[in-house]
């Protein structure tokens, strides 16, 4: 009974999360069709207009349509979040699987590299990289993807350590399966649950980092609209134009919230520990 209720709650979170993600994703995907204006088109006579009169979310300091800009900004946020997640998951899984499966010297070397990346103050890495290269989309994705993997590597390593002594691993080894085959076909599928949860929760963190970079002027540069660099512009007009800051931030919030909800739902559904807990109390 109690267990059933625990699963039910996870399902609701997963459903709402997925629906929200689909909404945000289609807004981003169909931005060219949904946008009422060209996001880059400036209109000097119409700056800082409140919502209404053909501009759903009002206009910004150059008379650009905030609704259209928010749609294109969401596009960038989701792209960064998802691509950086795939990058991090690939690196983290490879590192963690190698370290956990082989152990010994391989493990030591990989885990020391992991520690190094984990301890590195990534904000300063970003500051330096942004100074070297122009902060384009690929750079933001690369920075977030290449600094975000240590947690995933530790997770996968732990799962490998747990699974490599399992009977099915031993029998696979006995029939002569190669190490890569065992890792990819036998071990990783068994670690899929925790990996899926971590991957889902990586996306909102990446979206938040991208927005933060934009806010500090270190992300993708104007005139390309990102939710972060719109907020950076908006902070000088807070006194008179609430809509300027309100809507871009709201879209960051909704995107991040949706992925967190999905991640939490997946956790209460697949996590052994919380399933055990839901049998009680």
């Amino acid at each position, binding site marked *: 009974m109690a267990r059933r209720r625990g699963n039910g709650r996870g399902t609701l979170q997963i459903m709402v999360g997925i629906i929200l993600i689909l909404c945000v994703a289609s807004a981003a995907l169909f931005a060219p069709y949904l946008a009422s204006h060209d996001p880059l088109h400036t209109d000097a006579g119409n700056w800082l207009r409140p919502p209404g009169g053909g501009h759903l979310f009002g206009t910004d300091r150059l008379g650009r349509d905030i609704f259209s800009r928010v749609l294109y900004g969401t596009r960038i946020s989701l792209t960064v979040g998802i691509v950086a997640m795939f990058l991090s998951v690939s690196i983290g899984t490879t590192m963690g699987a190698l370290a956990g499966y082989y152990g010994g010297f391989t493990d030591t070397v990989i885990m020391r590299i992991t520690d190094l990346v984990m301890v590195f103050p990534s904000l300063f*890495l970003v*500051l330096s990289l942004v100074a070297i290269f122009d902060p384009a989309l690929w750079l933001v994705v690369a920075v977030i993807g290449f600094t975000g993997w240590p947690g995933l590597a530790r997770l996968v390593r732990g799962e490998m350590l747990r699974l490599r002594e399992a009977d099915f691993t031993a029998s696979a080894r006995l029939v002569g399966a190669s190490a890569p085959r065992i890792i990819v076909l036998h071990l990783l599928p068994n670690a899929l649950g925790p990996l899926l949860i971590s991957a889902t929760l990586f996306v*909102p963190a990446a979206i938040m980092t991208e927005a933060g970079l934009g806010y500090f002027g270190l992300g993708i540069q104007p005139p390309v609209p990102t939710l972060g660099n719109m907020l950076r512009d908006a902070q000088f007009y807070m006194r008179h134009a609430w809509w300027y*800051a309100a809507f871009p931030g709201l879209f960051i919030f909704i995107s991040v919230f949706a992925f967190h909800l999905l991640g939490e739902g997946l956790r209460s559904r697949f996590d052994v520990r919380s399933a055990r807990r839901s049998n009680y109390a």
Partner: protein
Amino acid sequence: MNIITKLLMRRAAQTVFILLGVTLVTFLMMHYAPGRPFAANPELRLDPTAVERWFQLRELDQPLPSQYLSWLSRVTRGDFGISLIYNRPVTELLIERLPATLLLTLTSFLLSLSLAVVLGTAAAVKRGSVIDSAVGAASLAGISVPGFWLGMILMMIFAYRLPWLPAAGMRTPGGGTLVDLAAHMVMPLVVLSAGSFAYYVRFVRFAVLDCLTADYVRTARAKGLPPAIILIRHVLPNAAIPIVTVAALSLPMLFTGALITENVFSWPGVGRFVIASTLARDYPVIMFVNFSMAMLTALANLLADIVYLVVDPRVRLNQ
């Protein structure tokens, strides 16, 4: 030799290795990045030969390996160098700005942690109740809201629309009373605490739930102890362990949060200074900040390991 000493020594060796790596990477990136000190601001119209002489004086014309080695040897003597721009010791510049940052971060730390312990425990004990759902929703919202946006929205409402709170800074010029300081702190504290509360409260809830299912709680209940006594005497002391660990590990995160909050509210702390110095290529400041952040993170990790060792006998036995 006892196990904690052994762990400490192994970790100290690893930390030295990691710090070497972090400082070397920072050093190389910093020097290969385009833009030199004083170049970011062409309006200054500095005399190029004077700048060149200044660089020579500060040994910036030396080959990079020897610059790095001389930085290292000075650091081992506790000397982190002199700011290129302020011409004052780096440590002095940061220590001046540290109290403002500590006031903000430590208050926020205590506030969000105590609030999280109270509400997280309530949520766990009344699992599935309205309190539990409300705490869950608040935590989800707190994690999902970008701090700088929350700060801007608060400022729009409580400083501009309703003139209740000062919009920025730490004290009103000429003010300086404690009430004035508190009024300036309200919004930065809310922004800084929202994220960390959301983060702590879920750990508190998990930890307390975990202990509530333990056998010794069932025993205590079977003995007929009142629920309040079980909670205070049996559950909370055991739940404290993971909570303390998470709190310790989150200390570096608090400083990153302060960086953002200080920028939004023009709080005169370390955060704004750090961003400005990095953009201005003040090499000694950049090196010191990266070094101390890496050090702080490493220490937080070590602290968490020691707490684990002290409280979990199984870890000790496995060694």
